[in-house]
Protein backbone atom coordinates (compact mmCIF):
# COMPACT_ATOMS: atom_id res chain seq x y z
CA UNK A 1 0.00 0.00 0.00
CA UNK A 2 1.46 3.32 -1.00
CA UNK A 3 0.26 6.37 0.84
CA UNK A 4 -0.09 9.37 -1.38
CA UNK A 5 -0.81 12.92 -0.43
CA UNK A 6 -4.39 12.08 -1.09
CA UNK A 7 -7.45 14.01 -0.13
CA UNK A 8 -9.45 12.34 2.60
CA UNK A 9 -13.11 13.22 3.06
CA UNK A 10 -12.35 14.01 6.71
CA UNK A 11 -9.38 15.55 8.58
CA UNK A 12 -6.47 13.17 9.09
CA UNK A 13 -3.57 13.49 11.52
CA UNK A 14 -0.50 13.15 9.31
CA UNK A 15 3.02 14.37 8.68
CA UNK A 16 1.93 15.87 5.34
CA UNK A 17 -1.06 17.99 6.34
CA UNK A 18 -2.19 20.42 9.01
CA UNK A 19 -5.70 18.98 9.31
CA UNK A 20 -4.97 18.28 12.98
CA UNK A 21 -2.76 20.98 14.44
CA UNK A 22 0.01 20.87 17.05
CA UNK A 23 -0.26 17.07 17.16
CA UNK A 24 1.75 14.23 15.83
CA UNK A 25 1.62 10.46 15.54
CA UNK A 26 4.69 8.25 15.64
CA UNK A 27 4.80 4.52 15.25
CA UNK A 28 7.93 2.46 15.70
CA UNK A 29 8.48 -1.16 14.91
CA UNK A 30 11.27 -3.47 16.04
CA UNK A 31 11.67 -6.82 14.34
CA UNK A 32 13.41 -10.02 15.25
CA UNK A 33 13.36 -13.43 13.63
CA UNK A 34 13.33 -16.96 14.94
CA UNK A 35 13.71 -19.90 12.60
CA UNK A 36 10.06 -19.88 11.50
CA UNK A 37 8.65 -16.59 12.69
CA UNK A 38 9.09 -12.84 12.43
CA UNK A 39 8.28 -11.12 15.71
CA UNK A 40 7.41 -7.44 15.69
CA UNK A 41 7.30 -5.12 18.70
CA UNK A 42 5.19 -2.08 17.96
CA UNK A 43 5.08 1.17 19.86
CA UNK A 44 2.63 3.88 18.86
CA UNK A 45 2.17 7.29 20.40
CA UNK A 46 0.17 10.37 19.53
CA UNK A 47 0.16 13.74 21.21
CA UNK A 48 -3.41 14.35 20.02
CA UNK A 49 -5.53 14.16 23.15
CA UNK A 50 -8.75 13.89 21.20
CA UNK A 51 -7.53 10.75 19.43
CA UNK A 52 -6.08 9.34 22.65
CA UNK A 53 -9.54 9.67 24.18
CA UNK A 54 -11.08 7.80 21.21
CA UNK A 55 -8.53 5.02 21.66
CA UNK A 56 -9.26 4.83 25.37
CA UNK A 57 -12.98 4.60 24.52
CA UNK A 58 -12.14 1.79 22.03
CA UNK A 59 -13.45 3.92 19.15
CA UNK A 60 -10.05 4.09 17.48
CA UNK A 61 -7.04 1.81 17.37
CA UNK A 62 -3.45 1.59 16.18
CA UNK A 63 -2.71 -0.50 13.09
CA UNK A 64 0.23 -1.74 11.03
CA UNK A 65 -0.56 -2.74 7.47
CA UNK A 66 1.85 -5.21 5.85
CA UNK A 67 2.03 -5.86 2.14
CA UNK A 68 4.53 -8.03 0.27
CA UNK A 69 4.24 -8.09 -3.51
CA UNK A 70 6.59 -11.08 -3.91
CA UNK A 71 4.37 -13.43 -1.91
CA UNK A 72 1.07 -11.51 -2.26
CA UNK A 73 0.91 -11.31 1.53
CA UNK A 74 -1.32 -8.59 2.90
CA UNK A 75 -2.51 -8.26 6.47
CA UNK A 76 -3.28 -5.67 9.10
CA UNK A 77 -2.33 -5.96 12.78
CA UNK A 78 -4.26 -3.79 15.23
CA UNK A 79 -4.35 -2.93 18.93
CA UNK A 80 -5.91 -0.49 21.37
CA UNK A 81 -2.63 -0.55 23.31
CA UNK A 82 0.36 1.71 22.62
CA UNK A 83 2.76 -1.18 22.95
CA UNK A 84 1.89 -4.50 21.35
CA UNK A 85 3.57 -7.42 19.66
CA UNK A 86 2.54 -9.58 16.74
CA UNK A 87 4.08 -12.33 14.67
CA UNK A 88 3.92 -13.73 11.21
CA UNK A 89 5.26 -16.92 9.69
CA UNK A 90 8.72 -16.40 8.18
CA UNK A 91 7.64 -18.08 4.95
CA UNK A 92 4.76 -15.68 4.37
CA UNK A 93 6.97 -12.78 3.28
CA UNK A 94 10.04 -12.44 1.12
CA UNK A 95 11.92 -9.47 -0.25
CA UNK A 96 10.40 -6.04 -0.02
CA UNK A 97 7.57 -5.58 2.47
CA UNK A 98 5.77 -2.26 2.67
CA UNK A 99 4.56 -1.32 6.13
CA UNK A 100 2.12 1.50 6.80
CA UNK A 101 1.15 2.61 10.28
CA UNK A 102 -2.22 4.11 11.02
CA UNK A 103 -4.73 5.16 13.60
CA UNK A 104 -8.06 3.77 12.39
CA UNK A 105 -11.67 4.12 13.41
CA UNK A 106 -12.63 0.97 15.32
CA UNK A 107 -16.33 1.64 14.78
CA UNK A 108 -18.56 3.95 12.79
CA UNK A 109 -18.42 7.48 14.24
CA UNK A 110 -21.24 9.71 13.08
CA UNK A 111 -19.96 13.00 14.52
CA UNK A 112 -16.19 12.79 14.24
CA UNK A 113 -14.74 16.02 15.59
CA UNK A 114 -11.61 16.77 17.60
CA UNK A 115 -10.60 19.87 19.57
CA UNK A 116 -7.29 19.71 17.65
CA UNK A 117 -8.89 20.06 14.19
CA UNK A 118 -7.59 23.00 12.16
CA UNK A 119 -9.72 26.13 12.83
CA UNK A 120 -11.02 25.83 9.25
CA UNK A 121 -13.07 22.85 10.46
CA UNK A 122 -14.53 24.65 13.45
CA UNK A 123 -18.14 23.69 14.03
CA UNK A 124 -17.96 20.78 11.55
CA UNK A 125 -18.15 17.12 12.27
CA UNK A 126 -17.69 14.19 9.92
CA UNK A 127 -19.05 10.71 9.39
CA UNK A 128 -16.32 8.09 9.51
CA UNK A 129 -16.75 4.37 9.02
CA UNK A 130 -15.02 1.49 10.71
CA UNK A 131 -11.57 1.06 9.18
CA UNK A 132 -11.30 4.70 8.06
CA UNK A 133 -7.90 6.32 8.46
CA UNK A 134 -7.72 8.91 11.26
CA UNK A 135 -3.93 9.17 11.47
CA UNK A 136 -0.91 8.17 9.37
CA UNK A 137 2.79 7.92 10.08
CA UNK A 138 5.45 7.68 7.35
CA UNK A 139 5.51 4.49 5.31
CA UNK A 140 8.48 2.19 5.81
CA UNK A 141 10.03 -0.74 3.98
CA UNK A 142 11.21 -3.97 5.52
CA UNK A 143 13.34 -6.42 3.57
CA UNK A 144 12.68 -10.04 4.44
CA UNK A 145 15.70 -12.12 3.55
CA UNK A 146 14.99 -15.61 2.21
CA UNK A 147 18.16 -16.99 3.70
CA UNK A 148 20.64 -15.49 6.07
CA UNK A 149 22.41 -13.14 3.77
CA UNK A 150 23.95 -15.62 1.32
CA UNK A 151 24.92 -12.98 -1.22
CA UNK A 152 26.76 -10.46 0.83
CA UNK A 153 29.84 -10.33 -1.39
CA UNK A 154 29.38 -8.04 -4.36
CA UNK A 155 30.75 -10.43 -7.06
CA UNK A 156 28.22 -13.05 -5.96
CA UNK A 157 25.32 -10.91 -7.13
CA UNK A 158 26.55 -11.30 -10.71
CA UNK A 159 25.86 -14.28 -12.94
CA UNK A 160 27.86 -14.54 -16.17
CA UNK A 161 26.04 -16.43 -18.92
CA UNK A 162 26.61 -17.21 -22.62
CA UNK A 163 24.32 -15.49 -25.09
CA UNK A 164 24.13 -18.04 -27.88
CA UNK A 165 22.29 -16.13 -30.57
CA UNK A 166 23.67 -14.90 -33.87
CA UNK A 167 24.74 -11.25 -34.11
CA UNK A 168 24.33 -10.81 -30.36
CA UNK A 169 25.86 -7.89 -28.52
CA UNK A 170 29.28 -9.10 -27.26
CA UNK A 171 28.68 -7.83 -23.73
CA UNK A 172 25.34 -6.86 -22.23
CA UNK A 173 23.51 -7.16 -18.92
CA UNK A 174 20.04 -7.63 -17.43
CA UNK A 175 19.28 -6.43 -13.92
CA UNK A 176 15.57 -7.25 -13.72
CA UNK A 177 16.03 -10.44 -11.64
CA UNK A 178 17.52 -11.26 -8.25
CA UNK A 179 21.01 -11.35 -9.79
CA UNK A 180 22.61 -9.08 -12.34
CA UNK A 181 23.03 -11.33 -15.36
CA UNK A 182 26.00 -10.48 -17.55
CA UNK A 183 25.44 -11.73 -21.08
CA UNK A 184 28.54 -12.58 -23.10
CA UNK A 185 28.59 -13.67 -26.72
CA UNK A 186 29.56 -17.32 -27.11
CA UNK A 187 33.15 -16.48 -28.11
CA UNK A 188 33.55 -14.14 -25.20
CA UNK A 189 32.00 -16.63 -22.82
CA UNK A 190 34.40 -19.37 -23.90
CA UNK A 191 37.36 -17.04 -23.32
CA UNK A 192 35.85 -16.02 -20.00
CA UNK A 193 35.56 -19.66 -18.95
CA UNK A 194 39.16 -20.39 -19.90
CA UNK A 195 40.55 -17.33 -18.13
CA UNK A 196 38.43 -17.93 -15.03
CA UNK A 197 40.31 -21.21 -14.47
CA UNK A 198 43.48 -19.22 -13.85
CA UNK A 199 43.34 -17.81 -10.34
CA UNK A 200 45.95 -15.14 -11.13
CA UNK A 201 43.78 -13.71 -13.88
CA UNK A 202 40.58 -13.39 -11.83
CA UNK A 203 41.19 -9.67 -11.13
CA UNK A 204 41.48 -9.14 -14.88
CA UNK A 205 37.98 -10.54 -15.31
CA UNK A 206 36.73 -8.30 -12.53
CA UNK A 207 38.21 -5.27 -14.27
CA UNK A 208 36.91 -6.23 -17.68
CA UNK A 209 33.48 -7.56 -16.80
CA UNK A 210 32.31 -6.89 -13.25
CA UNK A 211 33.64 -3.33 -13.00
CA UNK A 212 31.81 -1.86 -16.03
CA UNK A 213 28.61 -3.68 -15.08
CA UNK A 214 28.83 -2.40 -11.51
CA UNK A 215 29.52 1.15 -12.71
CA UNK A 216 26.47 0.95 -14.96
CA UNK A 217 24.33 -0.28 -12.06
CA UNK A 218 25.65 2.44 -9.75
CA UNK A 219 24.86 5.05 -12.39
CA UNK A 220 21.32 3.71 -12.52
CA UNK A 221 21.02 3.88 -8.73
CA UNK A 222 22.64 7.29 -8.51
CA UNK A 223 20.43 8.81 -11.17
CA UNK A 224 17.37 6.84 -10.04
CA UNK A 225 16.20 6.31 -13.60
CA UNK A 226 12.65 5.27 -14.18
CA UNK A 227 12.50 1.48 -14.36
CA UNK A 228 9.73 -0.76 -15.56
CA UNK A 229 10.40 -2.85 -12.44
CA UNK A 230 11.11 -2.00 -8.84
CA UNK A 231 14.80 -2.65 -8.04
CA UNK A 232 13.88 -2.66 -4.33
CA UNK A 233 12.43 -6.12 -4.97
CA UNK A 234 15.70 -7.46 -6.40
CA UNK A 235 18.13 -9.16 -4.04
CA UNK A 236 21.15 -7.62 -5.80
CA UNK A 237 19.82 -4.17 -5.02
CA UNK A 238 19.56 -4.93 -1.31
CA UNK A 239 23.15 -6.20 -1.26
CA UNK A 240 24.50 -3.13 -3.03
CA UNK A 241 22.38 -0.83 -0.88
CA UNK A 242 23.70 -2.36 2.33
CA UNK A 243 27.31 -2.28 1.11
CA UNK A 244 26.87 1.38 0.09
CA UNK A 245 25.57 2.09 3.57
CA UNK A 246 28.87 0.78 4.95
CA UNK A 247 30.52 3.47 2.80
CA UNK A 248 28.10 6.00 4.33
CA UNK A 249 26.22 6.34 1.05
CA UNK A 250 22.47 6.45 1.45
CA UNK A 251 20.77 5.81 -1.89
CA UNK A 252 17.78 7.84 -0.76
CA UNK A 253 19.97 10.83 0.02
CA UNK A 254 21.77 11.86 -3.15
CA UNK A 255 23.99 14.29 -1.21
CA UNK A 256 25.81 11.31 0.27
CA UNK A 257 26.51 9.92 -3.22
CA UNK A 258 28.88 12.59 -4.48
CA UNK A 259 31.86 10.41 -5.48
CA UNK A 260 32.05 9.19 -9.07
CA UNK A 261 30.54 5.77 -9.69
CA UNK A 262 33.97 4.49 -10.80
CA UNK A 263 35.44 5.49 -7.44
CA UNK A 264 32.55 3.91 -5.55
CA UNK A 265 32.71 0.69 -7.61
CA UNK A 266 36.37 0.31 -6.68
CA UNK A 267 35.55 0.81 -3.02
CA UNK A 268 32.98 -1.97 -3.34
CA UNK A 269 35.11 -4.57 -5.08
CA UNK A 270 38.64 -3.46 -4.28
CA UNK A 271 41.15 -2.37 -6.90
CA UNK A 272 41.18 -5.12 -9.53
CA UNK A 273 42.79 -2.77 -12.05
CA UNK A 274 46.04 -2.54 -10.11
CA UNK A 275 46.32 -6.32 -9.69
CA UNK A 276 45.36 -6.86 -13.34
CA UNK A 277 47.98 -4.43 -14.59
CA UNK A 278 50.55 -6.05 -12.33
CA UNK A 279 49.61 -9.47 -13.74
CA UNK A 280 50.03 -8.12 -17.27
CA UNK A 281 53.40 -6.55 -16.41
CA UNK A 282 54.57 -9.87 -14.99
CA UNK A 283 53.23 -11.65 -18.06
CA UNK A 284 55.27 -9.28 -20.25
CA UNK A 285 58.39 -9.89 -18.15
CA UNK A 286 57.98 -13.65 -18.48
CA UNK A 287 58.01 -13.25 -22.26
Amino acid at each position, binding site marked *: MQINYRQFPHPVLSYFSDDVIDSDFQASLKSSKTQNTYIFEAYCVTSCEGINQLIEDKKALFAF*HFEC*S*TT*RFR*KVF*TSFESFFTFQLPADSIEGKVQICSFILAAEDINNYSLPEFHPDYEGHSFIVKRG*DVLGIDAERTFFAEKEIDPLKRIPSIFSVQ*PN*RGENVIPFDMDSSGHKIVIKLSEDNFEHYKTISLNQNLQPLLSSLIIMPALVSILEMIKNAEEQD*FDPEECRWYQVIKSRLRELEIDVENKNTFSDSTIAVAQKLIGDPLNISLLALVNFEDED
Partner: protein
Amino acid sequence: MELNYISESSLDELKVNILSNIERYTSDEVWIYKFFEGTTWNFPSTIRIENIDLHMPQSSTLHFDFENTKKIYTSLKGLSVIQATDERLWTYLTHNTFWNYMRKRWPVESYLEKEKPVEAIKERYFFMANRDRALIRNGIARLWWYGYVSYDENREDPFELTKVLLSKLDIAQSLLERSFSRNPDITKAVLSVLKQKELETSFIDRENFRSLMMYINQLGGVTILDTLDREDLEELVREKIEALS
Protein backbone atom coordinates in the same frame (compact mmCIF):
# COMPACT_ATOMS: atom_id res chain seq x y z
CA MET B 1 6.12 -37.72 -9.82
CA GLU B 2 9.15 -35.78 -8.68
CA LEU B 3 8.93 -32.05 -8.53
CA ASN B 4 12.24 -30.62 -9.67
CA TYR B 5 13.79 -27.18 -9.77
CA ILE B 6 15.94 -25.77 -12.52
CA SER B 7 19.26 -24.57 -11.09
CA GLU B 8 19.67 -20.83 -10.69
CA SER B 9 22.55 -20.62 -13.14
CA SER B 10 20.65 -22.68 -15.75
CA LEU B 11 17.63 -20.44 -15.28
CA ASP B 12 19.81 -17.40 -16.00
CA GLU B 13 21.26 -19.08 -19.08
CA LEU B 14 17.84 -20.09 -20.37
CA LYS B 15 16.54 -16.56 -19.95
CA VAL B 16 19.55 -15.00 -21.63
CA ASN B 17 18.95 -17.26 -24.63
CA ILE B 18 15.22 -16.83 -25.20
CA LEU B 19 15.78 -15.11 -28.53
CA SER B 20 18.28 -17.66 -29.83
CA ASN B 21 15.94 -20.45 -28.67
CA ILE B 22 12.84 -19.03 -30.30
CA GLU B 23 12.65 -21.83 -32.84
CA ARG B 24 12.98 -24.40 -30.05
CA TYR B 25 9.99 -22.78 -28.36
CA THR B 26 7.92 -23.70 -31.41
CA SER B 27 8.92 -27.34 -31.16
CA ASP B 28 6.44 -29.93 -29.92
CA GLU B 29 9.26 -31.95 -28.38
CA VAL B 30 10.75 -31.15 -24.99
CA TRP B 31 14.16 -29.65 -25.90
CA ILE B 32 15.53 -28.49 -22.58
CA TYR B 33 17.48 -31.72 -21.94
CA LYS B 34 19.31 -31.29 -25.22
CA PHE B 35 19.97 -27.61 -24.59
CA PHE B 36 21.69 -28.39 -21.31
CA GLU B 37 23.23 -31.65 -22.49
CA GLY B 38 26.18 -32.67 -20.36
CA THR B 39 25.37 -30.31 -17.50
CA THR B 40 23.39 -30.74 -14.30
CA TRP B 41 20.63 -28.26 -14.93
CA ASN B 42 17.95 -29.42 -12.49
CA PHE B 43 17.74 -30.94 -9.05
CA PRO B 44 14.96 -32.66 -7.15
CA SER B 45 12.86 -30.98 -4.48
CA THR B 46 11.57 -32.80 -1.43
CA ILE B 47 8.04 -32.68 -2.84
CA ARG B 48 6.44 -35.82 -4.28
CA ILE B 49 3.09 -35.64 -6.02
CA GLU B 50 0.79 -37.79 -8.11
CA ASN B 51 1.12 -37.42 -11.88
CA ILE B 52 -0.90 -34.48 -13.13
CA ASP B 53 -2.67 -34.96 -16.42
CA LEU B 54 -3.79 -31.52 -17.56
CA HIS B 55 -6.69 -31.02 -19.96
CA MET B 56 -5.33 -30.00 -23.33
CA PRO B 57 -6.72 -26.64 -24.50
CA GLN B 58 -8.85 -26.97 -27.64
CA SER B 59 -8.83 -23.31 -28.67
CA SER B 60 -8.17 -19.85 -27.28
CA THR B 61 -11.61 -19.85 -25.67
CA LEU B 62 -11.87 -23.51 -24.73
CA HIS B 63 -8.80 -23.68 -22.54
CA PHE B 64 -10.01 -25.56 -19.43
CA ASP B 65 -8.35 -23.11 -17.04
CA PHE B 66 -10.84 -23.98 -14.30
CA GLU B 67 -10.39 -27.75 -14.64
CA ASN B 68 -6.62 -27.38 -14.78
CA THR B 69 -6.55 -25.03 -11.79
CA LYS B 70 -8.39 -27.71 -9.82
CA LYS B 71 -5.87 -30.33 -10.89
CA ILE B 72 -2.77 -28.24 -10.20
CA TYR B 73 -3.97 -26.80 -6.89
CA THR B 74 -5.29 -30.11 -5.60
CA SER B 75 -1.98 -31.83 -6.32
CA LEU B 76 0.23 -28.98 -5.15
CA LYS B 77 -1.84 -27.68 -2.23
CA GLY B 78 1.06 -28.52 0.07
CA LEU B 79 3.38 -25.96 -1.53
CA SER B 80 4.37 -23.16 0.80
CA VAL B 81 3.90 -19.62 -0.46
CA ILE B 82 7.67 -19.23 -0.70
CA GLN B 83 7.90 -22.37 -2.87
CA ALA B 84 5.03 -21.09 -4.99
CA THR B 85 6.91 -17.85 -5.67
CA ASP B 86 10.05 -19.66 -6.81
CA GLU B 87 10.68 -19.05 -10.49
CA ARG B 88 13.00 -22.08 -10.67
CA LEU B 89 10.13 -24.47 -9.92
CA TRP B 90 7.65 -23.01 -12.42
CA THR B 91 10.28 -22.69 -15.15
CA TYR B 92 11.08 -26.39 -14.76
CA LEU B 93 7.39 -27.21 -15.09
CA THR B 94 6.73 -24.96 -18.10
CA HIS B 95 9.78 -26.23 -20.00
CA ASN B 96 9.58 -29.88 -19.09
CA THR B 97 6.68 -31.48 -17.18
CA PHE B 98 3.90 -29.45 -18.81
CA TRP B 99 5.60 -28.63 -22.11
CA ASN B 100 2.76 -30.17 -24.17
CA TYR B 101 0.18 -28.15 -22.28
CA MET B 102 2.23 -24.96 -22.67
CA ARG B 103 2.50 -25.55 -26.43
CA LYS B 104 -1.27 -25.71 -26.71
CA ARG B 105 -2.18 -22.98 -24.23
CA TRP B 106 0.58 -20.44 -24.95
CA PRO B 107 1.92 -21.28 -28.43
CA VAL B 108 4.96 -19.15 -29.12
CA GLU B 109 4.05 -18.90 -32.81
CA SER B 110 1.41 -16.34 -31.80
CA TYR B 111 4.10 -14.13 -30.23
CA LEU B 112 6.37 -14.04 -33.24
CA GLU B 113 4.33 -11.28 -34.87
CA LYS B 114 4.39 -9.25 -31.68
CA GLU B 115 6.74 -6.37 -31.08
CA LYS B 116 8.53 -8.04 -28.18
CA PRO B 117 8.30 -11.84 -28.50
CA VAL B 118 11.05 -12.34 -25.91
CA GLU B 119 9.05 -10.44 -23.29
CA ALA B 120 5.95 -12.48 -24.17
CA ILE B 121 7.87 -15.74 -23.68
CA LYS B 122 9.35 -14.44 -20.43
CA GLU B 123 5.84 -13.65 -19.22
CA ARG B 124 4.37 -17.11 -19.85
CA TYR B 125 7.34 -19.48 -19.58
CA PHE B 126 9.35 -17.65 -16.88
CA PHE B 127 8.64 -14.81 -14.44
CA MET B 128 8.26 -11.31 -15.81
CA ALA B 129 10.11 -8.51 -14.01
CA ASN B 130 7.03 -7.34 -12.10
CA ARG B 131 7.10 -9.96 -9.34
CA ASP B 132 3.48 -9.59 -8.33
CA ARG B 133 2.06 -10.00 -11.82
CA ALA B 134 4.60 -12.70 -12.65
CA LEU B 135 2.77 -15.18 -10.44
CA ILE B 136 -0.47 -14.88 -12.37
CA ARG B 137 1.14 -14.65 -15.80
CA ASN B 138 3.40 -17.73 -15.77
CA GLY B 139 1.53 -20.47 -17.65
CA ILE B 140 1.50 -22.96 -14.76
CA ALA B 141 2.04 -20.78 -11.67
CA ARG B 142 -1.15 -18.87 -12.52
CA LEU B 143 -3.19 -22.07 -12.20
CA TRP B 144 -1.83 -22.64 -8.66
CA TRP B 145 -2.38 -19.03 -7.62
CA TYR B 146 -5.94 -19.00 -8.98
CA GLY B 147 -6.60 -21.95 -6.70
CA TYR B 148 -4.75 -20.41 -3.75
CA VAL B 149 -6.71 -17.14 -3.77
CA SER B 150 -10.14 -18.69 -4.27
CA TYR B 151 -10.12 -22.14 -2.63
CA ASP B 152 -12.56 -22.07 0.28
CA GLU B 153 -12.65 -25.23 2.36
CA ASN B 154 -15.70 -23.98 4.25
CA ARG B 155 -17.81 -24.52 1.17
CA GLU B 156 -19.33 -27.78 0.11
CA ASP B 157 -17.44 -27.38 -3.14
CA PRO B 158 -14.17 -25.69 -2.15
CA PHE B 159 -13.60 -24.64 -5.76
CA GLU B 160 -16.97 -22.89 -6.07
CA LEU B 161 -15.37 -19.45 -5.99
CA THR B 162 -12.59 -20.58 -8.33
CA LYS B 163 -15.27 -21.26 -10.90
CA VAL B 164 -16.53 -17.68 -10.53
CA LEU B 165 -12.99 -16.33 -10.75
CA LEU B 166 -12.43 -18.13 -14.04
CA SER B 167 -15.90 -17.82 -15.45
CA LYS B 168 -15.87 -14.77 -17.72
CA LEU B 169 -15.28 -11.04 -18.00
CA ASP B 170 -11.53 -11.28 -17.36
CA ILE B 171 -12.43 -11.40 -13.69
CA ALA B 172 -9.18 -13.16 -12.79
CA GLN B 173 -6.97 -10.56 -14.40
CA SER B 174 -8.97 -7.48 -13.32
CA LEU B 175 -9.23 -8.73 -9.77
CA LEU B 176 -5.84 -10.29 -9.15
CA GLU B 177 -3.86 -7.37 -10.52
CA ARG B 178 -5.35 -5.05 -7.89
CA SER B 179 -3.34 -4.94 -4.70
CA PHE B 180 -6.41 -5.34 -2.45
CA SER B 181 -6.87 -8.84 -3.90
CA ARG B 182 -3.76 -9.92 -1.97
CA ASN B 183 -6.05 -10.14 1.03
CA PRO B 184 -7.90 -13.45 0.52
CA ASP B 185 -10.91 -12.19 2.52
CA ILE B 186 -11.42 -9.29 0.12
CA THR B 187 -10.97 -11.50 -2.95
CA LYS B 188 -13.37 -14.11 -1.61
CA ALA B 189 -15.91 -11.45 -0.62
CA VAL B 190 -15.97 -10.14 -4.20
CA LEU B 191 -16.25 -13.64 -5.66
CA SER B 192 -18.86 -14.68 -3.17
CA VAL B 193 -21.15 -11.75 -4.04
CA LEU B 194 -20.61 -12.39 -7.75
CA LYS B 195 -21.65 -15.98 -7.12
CA GLN B 196 -24.82 -14.88 -5.32
CA LYS B 197 -25.62 -12.44 -8.10
CA GLU B 198 -25.10 -15.17 -10.64
CA LEU B 199 -27.66 -17.31 -8.78
CA GLU B 200 -30.07 -14.37 -8.74
CA THR B 201 -29.47 -14.20 -12.49
CA SER B 202 -28.46 -10.54 -12.32
CA PHE B 203 -26.00 -10.02 -15.09
CA ILE B 204 -22.81 -8.16 -14.27
CA ASP B 205 -21.16 -6.92 -17.39
CA ARG B 206 -17.50 -6.24 -17.97
CA GLU B 207 -17.84 -2.49 -17.55
CA ASN B 208 -19.70 -2.77 -14.24
CA PHE B 209 -17.14 -5.23 -12.96
CA ARG B 210 -14.31 -2.85 -13.80
CA SER B 211 -16.21 0.01 -12.11
CA LEU B 212 -16.56 -2.19 -9.03
CA MET B 213 -12.80 -2.83 -9.03
CA MET B 214 -12.09 0.89 -9.32
CA TYR B 215 -14.52 1.64 -6.52
CA ILE B 216 -12.87 -0.85 -4.15
CA ASN B 217 -9.47 0.54 -5.05
CA GLN B 218 -10.57 4.10 -4.33
CA LEU B 219 -12.30 3.08 -1.14
CA GLY B 220 -9.08 1.39 -0.02
CA GLY B 221 -7.46 4.82 -0.04
CA VAL B 222 -9.69 6.01 2.80
CA THR B 223 -10.72 2.81 4.56
CA ILE B 224 -8.28 0.04 5.43
CA LEU B 225 -10.45 -2.73 4.02
CA ASP B 226 -8.33 -5.40 5.69
CA THR B 227 -9.83 -4.43 9.06
CA LEU B 228 -13.34 -5.29 7.89
CA ASP B 229 -14.75 -8.78 8.31
CA ARG B 230 -16.10 -10.93 5.48
CA GLU B 231 -19.73 -9.97 6.08
CA ASP B 232 -18.96 -6.22 6.01
CA LEU B 233 -16.88 -6.65 2.88
CA GLU B 234 -19.61 -8.62 1.15
CA GLU B 235 -22.18 -6.00 2.11
CA LEU B 236 -19.98 -3.27 0.71
CA VAL B 237 -19.50 -5.13 -2.59
CA ARG B 238 -23.20 -5.99 -2.82
CA GLU B 239 -24.27 -2.37 -2.29
CA LYS B 240 -21.95 -1.17 -5.01
CA ILE B 241 -23.05 -3.84 -7.49
CA GLU B 242 -26.67 -2.93 -6.86
CA ALA B 243 -25.88 0.75 -7.35
CA LEU B 244 -24.18 -0.07 -10.64
CA SER B 245 -26.96 -2.29 -11.95
